Structure formats: structure tokens, C-alpha cells
């Protein structure tokens, strides 16, 4: 009985060590190919890509601190980012990923907001940037584009 216990514990430790040493820089399903879309090209004509699987590369510059359910990925153009959203709990991005260069894959989607929601978003943006906000100036509804992410791979720069 004692030998069996020792054997079981040893097997478990070996399996755990194997898991811990495995490549942990893959989140979700990872990425399925090498061809990349250019972020600035997607953002230049976002409606063209709706429903398509896209794969982008960039620095993860911001993330959801609470649940790790989204990342902002830096574009090839300064000041431009793309949002990668994943299902809550399905993939959890830790804070360590911020600053890393990642390849993210998912489906490009568009969410149409109502005028009320658009105004609320503009107000929040203005607060964040310390700018003045006039709700009367917001007359068109906003469409938020994002990648509904299925996987991320952390790569060396």
C-alpha cells in the first residue's frame, strides 16, 4: 500500500511538472496560421472584415484588470488600438501580458450602439481625456468594432 501511494504521488508530481513546464504563453486556442492582418488596414475599412476570422500582431497595451476578459492591442500606427474581447472566464488574460507582443485571433465583429449609449461613451472618453463634452454635438450612433477572440499567442518581438 505504501509503495502504491509513493508511486501515485510520483506520477502526479511528474504530470504536474510536465504541465507547469509546458508552453504557457498560449491563451485559449492559440492561433491557427501564420498570415497576419494589418491592424491599420482593418481599421481603415472595418465593415469589409465583419464576420471574417482575423489574426493581428501587436503589443498588448491595456487589459481588463478585473476579469482579464479583454486586451487592447497596439496597431502598426501610433495611437491606434484594436480591442480583443473574449468570453468571460473562457480565457483570462493576466496583467503580465501587458507590454508583451502578441498574436491574437478571432472573428471581427461590429456592435451598433444607440444614441444614448454613444453619448454615455463619449462622456466617459471626454472625462478620461480631461476634455469638455457637449451631448448636443453627438448626433450619430457609434459602432464598436472588436475581435471576438478565440486565442492569443505571446511572441518575442
Amino acid at each position, binding site marked *: 500500500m505504501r509503495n502504491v501511494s509513493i508511486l501515485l504521488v510520483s506520477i502526479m508530481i511528474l504530470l504536474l511538472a510536465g*504541465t507547469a513546464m509546458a508552453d504557457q504563453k498560449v491563451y485559449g486556442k492559440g492561433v491557427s496560421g501564420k498570415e497576419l492582418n494589418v491592424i491599420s488596414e482593418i481599421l481603415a475599412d472595418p465593415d469589409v472584415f465583419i464576420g471574417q476570422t482575423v489574426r493581428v500582431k501587436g503589443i498588448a497595451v491595456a487589459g481588463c484588470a478585473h476579469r482579464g476578459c479583454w486586451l487592447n492591442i497596439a496597431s502598426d500606427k501610433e495611437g491606434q488600438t484594436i480591442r480583443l474581447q473574449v468570453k468571460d472566464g473562457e480565457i483570462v488574460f493576466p496583467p503580465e501580458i501587458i507590454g*508583451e507582443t502578441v498574436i491574437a485571433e478571432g472573428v471581427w465583429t461590429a456592435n451598433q450602439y444607440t444614441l444614448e449609449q454613444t453619448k454615455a461613451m463619449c462622456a466617459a472618453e471626454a472625462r478620461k481625456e480631461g476634455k469638455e463634452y457637449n451631448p448636443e454635438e453627438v448626433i450619430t450612433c457609434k459602432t464598436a468594432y472588436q475581435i471576438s477572440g478565440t486565442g492569443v499567442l505571446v511572441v518575442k518581438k
Partner: protein
Amino acid sequence: MKKFRKVCRWLHREAGFLAVGLTLVYAISGIAINHAHHWDANYSRTEEVLQIEPVGILPTAEAEPLVLDRLGITIPVKGIWRDSETLLQIFLDGVQYDVNLESGRVIRQGFAKRPLLYDVNFMHLNSGKKIWTVIADTYAGILILLALTGIFLVKGRKGLSGRGGVTMALGVVLPVVYAVLIRIQ
């Protein structure tokens, strides 16, 4: 019945010993995660405001070395990002600097894994998947076994037909009532 009770006692004892460590992991993490809306159970975070001599609105390639020098950063950075005309972000392991190039105001945000809690939460939430899924499922099975065999350990007044039965009913009624309440809300 006597033999059945004997088997239950044996199973409960052996499985019980095996479950001690894992129960502590899940219980400690359970308390931490229950209060996830009050605090970050995995990471401790810090934020401080610093001031450096402003480098001015320069192209990123020119601003970058100046900022790194003025912040005294000599180790390799993970990444640098020009978020806007005035904001340059510098990412290092566990630290992020948001540098206002115009004013020289710097926000330094740091984070670190909480000792022990990060690890138990990682296990509890099965963040690693793979082999831990098997271990966690096995543990759940052991808990079911402990619960069922526990019912038959004691006979008489303190057992299922007496006080034990009443406390067991309480433990069953509690989640049932709660489930009903959240459904009718």
C-alpha cells in the same frame, strides 16, 4: 447494514485524508474569490506619481531614450507604446510607466502576485486546465463520496435518524431556499 457502515467508514477515512490538502486549497481560495468584488484576490497593485523633466512632444524614437534615461531605466523593456501625442507608455515586468511627455508627469503602476493566494486561486479556477482538470474532477468525486458516506457513519440519536438528520436537512434546505429566492426575484 453493519458491513455497509464499515465500508462507509473505511471510504470516508481514506478519502478524507486525501482530501485535506485540496479542501484547504479550495476553501481558502473560495473565501478570497467570494470577495473578488472587494479586492483583487490574485494581485497586489501599487500606483505612484513621479515627476521627471519633460522631454517635450518629440517623435517616439527620439523621446524614448530620453524618457528611459530620466526614469533611470537600464534594464530591457518589454514594450513601448505611443498612446497619443503626449502619452508614452513603457512596459517592464510588473511595472508600467505612463509618461506625459509635455508635463513630465509619470504614473508608475506596479503589480505583483499575492503569495499563496495567487496559487490557490489558479487551482480553484482551473486556470491551467490540462492535468488539473483531472485532479479537480477527482477531488469533486471524492467530496461527493465523503458527503454520501458521511451520512452513514453514526447511528442512533446523533445519526441520520436524529440530530444528524436535522442538520443534514438544514444543509440541503439552505441552498434550495436560496435557489428559489433568486429564481423568483
